[in-house]
């Protein structure tokens, strides 16, 4: 705490500079720990690859790929007789049973998935942190209310609820992510963060802050929540897997109303299999591995963040 007390004696400008240096140091240290976990680095690389996929699609559509052939929803290549066709120079991943370019659908589905996943992850982390922090600080009836809400959310697992909602309503990716995030934040993430917050609350520095006259807002936002954030980040990444599966499953049931979705690709592959009795392996493999790799990337990044948050890893 010497650095902090020294900060108080500096003027505003140099205080900013010192804080910046401290943050830079912490960031560098965090990166060194993160880099030690090769799976986490692999996950980060995969995420970068997926973001490139999401960004590159509109450019490809505008330049190299003619709209009529490569459109992800209605494209059709007249030059090929039998669809689905295996990978070729024109279609790097081949075409599906309806004659659309598989790579184009794969790329086009990346952006909505990213939107959905980021919304779900952020919402669940924010709500989970607030729920965990508030119920650990106030205990009593606040804790009771949130515990019962969590029980409800655990009774109705978020993926299942989303499937049920998807049955009847046309849910856009962003709405899907927000809803999923609220459910997961009140449920699993809230439960995990609450038990961690309880252990933080029993630490001496909370007591010290109270003795020094810190109010509820100061203790919760200044001391408690910063200690919850690393775990919240880890759980946020784990929420992603559930969200991807639920979204993919709705698509797989054929309920996503022609939204571009990796699950819908699998649904289409099965549904139109009857047209020519061939199993379109190129479509199935591409979409299934996209779902798995996307989820796995988040899981591996979560592992790296877990290491960074673990004080024992610091040397």
């Amino acid at each position: 705490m010497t650095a902090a007390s020294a900060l108080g004696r500096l003027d505003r400008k140099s205080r900013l500079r010192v804080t910046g240096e401290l943050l830079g140091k912490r960031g560098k240290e965090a990166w060194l720990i993160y880099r030690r976990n090769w799976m986490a680095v692999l996950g980060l690389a995969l995420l970068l690859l997926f973001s490139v996929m999401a960004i590159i699609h509109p450019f490809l559509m505008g330049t190299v790929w003619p709209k009529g052939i490569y459109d992800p929803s209605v494209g059709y290549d007249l030059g090929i007789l039998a669809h689905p066709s295996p990978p070729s120079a024109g279609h790097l991943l081949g075409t599906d049973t309806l004659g659309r370019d598989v790579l184009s659908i794969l790329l086009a589905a990346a952006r909505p998935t990213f939107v959905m996943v980021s919304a779900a992850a952020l919402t669940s982390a924010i709500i989970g942190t607030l729920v965990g922090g508030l119920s650990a600080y106030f205990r009593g009836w606040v804790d009771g209310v949130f515990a019962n809400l969590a029980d409800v959310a655990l009774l109705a697992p978020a993926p299942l609820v989303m499937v049920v909602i998807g049955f009847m309503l046309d849910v856009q990716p962003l709405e899907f992510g927000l809803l999923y995030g609220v459910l997961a934040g009140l449920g699993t993430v809230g439960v995990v963060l609450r038990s961690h917050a309880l252990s933080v609350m029993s630490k001496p520095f909370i007591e010290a802050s109270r003795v020094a006259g810190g109010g509820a807002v100061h203790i919760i936002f200044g001391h408690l929540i910063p200690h919850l954030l690393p775990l919240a980040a880890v759980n946020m990444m784990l929420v992603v897997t559930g969200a991807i599966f639920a979204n993919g499953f709705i698509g797989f049931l054929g309920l996503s109303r022609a939204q571009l979705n990796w699950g819908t690709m699998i649904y289409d592959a099965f549904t139109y299999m009857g047209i020519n009795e061939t199993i379109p392996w190129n479509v199935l493999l591409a979409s299934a591995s996209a779902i798995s790799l996307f989820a796995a990337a988040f899981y591996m990044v979560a592992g790296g963040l877990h290491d960074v948050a673990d004080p024992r890893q610091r040397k």
Partner: protein
Amino acid sequence: MIRYLARRMLSGLVTLFLFVSLVFFGTQVVLPGDFVSQYALFLSTSESEEMRQTLGLDLPLGERYLHWLGQLLHGDLGRSFSIEGMGAPVTEVILQTLPATLLVFGLGTAIAFLGGQWLGRLTGWRSPKWFSGTATLGAIALYTSFPPWLAFLLVYLFVLKLNLLPANATRAMFRQPQVSQPQVMSQMVLTLLVALAITLAAAWGVRRLRRRRRLPILVQLALIGLLWVGAWLVYDIVPYAVEIMRAAALPIMIYSLLSFGEIMLIVRTTMADTVDEEFIQTALAKGLKPAQVRDRHAARAAILPVISRLVISLPYLFTGMVMIEQTVGWSGVGTTLLFALGEQNVPLVAGMIVAIGIFSLLTRLGLDLIQISLDPRLRVASAARRGLL
């Protein structure tokens, strides 16, 4: 202890009740139309009105709720809707579908837990880097594989290519009216539970009689299997049970593969955290064999977070179960629930959720009990609360 369990049960039931009420209103307010409106093409207006009257859908929502509530207080879940007016009692539908789900869910979770715990223990404990690396990558691949896709792959491999398993529960054997499939299934689930209880009691007895001797896990498993098959013989359901097991093998395999990855990853992480603890160093320093320290000291401490984590993951595992049922065409709770939701069969949906809720409450209580019996700290805490210490 008993007071704690009773309190948990009570608060769980209250939550469940609130949740079911929410579902009752939710399905009827948010979703457009009602059960009758989907048959609007085949029915004239007066016929629709008549059907609404038989089903009680013409009453205001509040009145319907109170009526349903009154029935529930008498332990009656009402009757499912059907095109000919009132269908089968909901309790009957639940009793017909629940055994199928329980069979796959229970056996699958048990296999996944045993396998995942074993492999996680090995990989989390100073194993060579290539081994733990491959095992972890494999577990991540299983954990993140999309359930319908994995189901399709296994169906393709075992049913279409190798012809080892039947694609669906063949009903040829169940043509005779005296034996019904759900009945055999519920007998199977019950006898499995009894076999499990007997085996656990035997293991406990052996440990009590001869100190420090344990029944090896393989002997326990064999005992369970023998008792189970023996029970089939007693009930005289062997051919039916074999038929069911052949059909259930595929969903069980898919389900346990999916859950296996998650369980293994949790065990590995907690195991890796335990390795550096001081009591492990002590145990090693006093000259115990590493394998002994791993199984008796580290694994016992590492299993606790797994069980508390299992409480949270259980609903997610169940969701995976629903996806598998839907993909493989296994007629269990999940498929029925999705179907009932699709046609807004409100009493059936509400009843199913009550059943699932009670089941998950019981499972969570069971896991609580296991945790208390495994963690000495919790036992001491509860004894202290009762004033014994």
